[in-house]
C-alpha cells in the first residue's frame, strides 16, 4: 500500500477488511482493490450497504486468464454507486488447481448471468450459484474458450437437434 493518494472507498475497505486487501491502486483514475477470496461476499455486502460506499450497481464481472502466473485466474468486479456517482474495481486472484469463489448473487441478483459467463468462458466455479450452467456456449462444448491455452482456431462440432 504505497499509494500516495488513496480514495475514501479504498481507505474504508482497508480499514474494515485490512487483512483481506492485498493491494490497491488508482491507475488511470480507476480505484482498484485486489482482495483475498475467502470473504468476498462480506466485502461485497459491505460495499453495497456502507453509507459512504453504496455500490448498488454491479456493472460487470469477468474473468481474466494470466497464463503462466500463479495464481492464474482473476475475477474482476466493476461496481457503481448511484448515490456517489463513483466506481470501484474489485479483483480476486484464483489458483489454477481450484478456481473457485463464492457467488455474490445474494448481494446483487443481477450478477447471476455474469458469473455464468465467467464460468462458461474461463471455468471459474462460483460456489452457491443458483444455476451455474453454460450461457453463451452449448452444454456439450468441451473446454473454456477464453482461456489462453484454448487455441483460437480450434473447432468443435456444432450440434443440431437430436434425431
Amino acid at each position, binding site marked *: 500500500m504505497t499509494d500516495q493518494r488513496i480514495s475514501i472507498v479504498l481507505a474504508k475497505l482497508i480499514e474494515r477488511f485490512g487483512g483481506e486487501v492485498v493491494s490497491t491502486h488508482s491507475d488511470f483514475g480507476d480505484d482498484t482493490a485486489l482482495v483475498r477470496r475467502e470473504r468476498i461476499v462480506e466485502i461485497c455486502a459491505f460495499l453495497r450497504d456502507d453509507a459512504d460506499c453504496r455500490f448498488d450497481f454491479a456493472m460487470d464481472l469477468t474473468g481474466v486468464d494470466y497464463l503462466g502466473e500463479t495464481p492464474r485466474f482473476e475475477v474482476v468486479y466493476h461496481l457503481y454507486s448511484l448515490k456517489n*456517482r463513483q466506481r470501484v*474495481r474489485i479483483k480476486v486472484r484464483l489458483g489454477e488447481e481450484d478456481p473457485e469463489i463464492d457467488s455474490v448473487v445474494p448481494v446483487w441478483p*443481477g450478477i447471476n*448471468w455474469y458469473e455464468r459467463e465467467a464460468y462458461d468462458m474461463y471455468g471459474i466455479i462460483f460456489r452457491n450459484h443458483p444455476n451455474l450452467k453454460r450461457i453463451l456456449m452449448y452444454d456439450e462444448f468441451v473446454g473454456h474458450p477464453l482461456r489462453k491455452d484454448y487455441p483460437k482456431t480450434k473447432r468443435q462440432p456444432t450440434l443440431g437437434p437430436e434425431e
Partner: protein
Amino acid sequence: MADTLIKRKAARMLDMQAEPVILNIGPSHPATHATLRFIAELDGETLLKLTPEFGYLHRGFEKESENATWTQVIPYTDRLNYVSPLMNNVGYAMAVEKLCGIEITERSKYIRVLISEISRIIDHMVCIGTNMVDLGALTNFWYFWKPREEAYMQLIEPLTGQRLTTAYTRVGGAMWDLPEGWVEKCRNVCKTSFLPAIKDVNALLTKNRIFIERTMGVGPISKNDAIAMGFTGPCLRAAGVPLDLRKDEPYLVYDRFDFDVPIGEQGDTCDRYMVRMEEMRQSIRIIEQALDQMPGGPVNIDDTRYVLPDKPLVYTTIEALMQHFKFVMEGIQVPAGEVYSATEAANGELGYYIVSRGGKGPYKIKVRPPCFPLFQGMPLLCEGQMLADLIATLGSVNIIAGELDR
C-alpha cells in the same frame, strides 16, 4: 402476481385445470427480431415461468480481439450493437485513449458527440418502430424508417463509406474529417427528417387510447428491482432512476450542452416508449448545439505513435515513410495497465474493460453490453403477465443479439 400463480400451480388450481404448457419461442422467430429464445411455461395465456436463452450469435468477439492489434479491433466493435455501430467505435476508442493517456482534439470530440447522438436517434427509431410493428401499428415503423434511411444516406454513408460496418473512430481521432457540407446536411436532416417523424409518431401514439391501454402496466419494473438487476439506459430511466452517464460522468464535451434526462415512473412499456421519444428530442437539441459550437482544426492528434503520418509526407520524406511502415507493420503501442471506460450507448452503459500488457494488441477485452442485464431481467418483467405482453415488452427493452452474444 407471479407468486400467487406459482402457489396456484402448486395447489393444482390452474386456470386451465391441466398441466402447464411449455412453449418454445425462437431462436428464429419474427417477433424476437434477433436470435433469442424463450422457453415459456403457460397456464392458458398467462406466463408462469420464463427462461431466456441466447448465445446463437456468439462470434467470439473477445477471443478474436485478443489475437488482433489495437486497430484491428475497431471493425469488430461495429458488430456488437449493429443498430448504432458508431457508438461502439466511440466507446472502444475512448477506452484505449484512456489507457494511452491521449487527449483528443476538440473537433474530434464534437464529431464523436454528433455521431453518437445520431446513432442514438436511429437506434431509438428502430426500437420504437419494430416494437410498434409487433403491436400492429405498422405506420409508425415506416414513419421512423424513412428518417433513419435519410440519416444513413446523407450522414453516415458519406462520413464513413459504410452503412453498418462503420469502423470510423481511431485511437487518437477518427478515420478522416467530416466531408464538405456535412454540417449543413446534418442540420437539415434533423430539421426536415427527424423532427417531423417524431412529431408524426407522437401524434399517432402518445395520446392514442389503444396504444396506451396496450402498453401501460405491461412489463413493469420497480426502481429497486431495476437497480438490483443492473439495468441501465432508457429501461432504468423509465423506472424512475435518473442515471445518464452523459450527465453523471460527462465524457467528451457533454458538459457543454444543455439537455434534459427524461425519466418515467412505472418502468413499463409505455414509460420506455415515452423516455425514448423524449431522448430523441434531447439528442436533436445536443446535435444542434454541437453544430453551432463546432470548432475547426485537425481531427487527429499530432502524434505519429498513434496516428498515421500525412500521405504527402510519406511520399516525400524518409522519416514519415518509416513511421508509416512501422505503424502498419507493428500497430500502435499501448502501455501496460487496465482500464474500464463506460459510455452512455442507446441501450445503456456500454463498458469496455481492457487489460494491456504492452503487446501489439489487447491482452483482454471485456465488453459490458447494456442488453445483457436487460435480457436477464426479462422473467422479472414478464412472469405473471400474458404471453402477448412478452412480445410487447421484448420490443420495448430493445435486445440486440449482436452485443448480447458478442
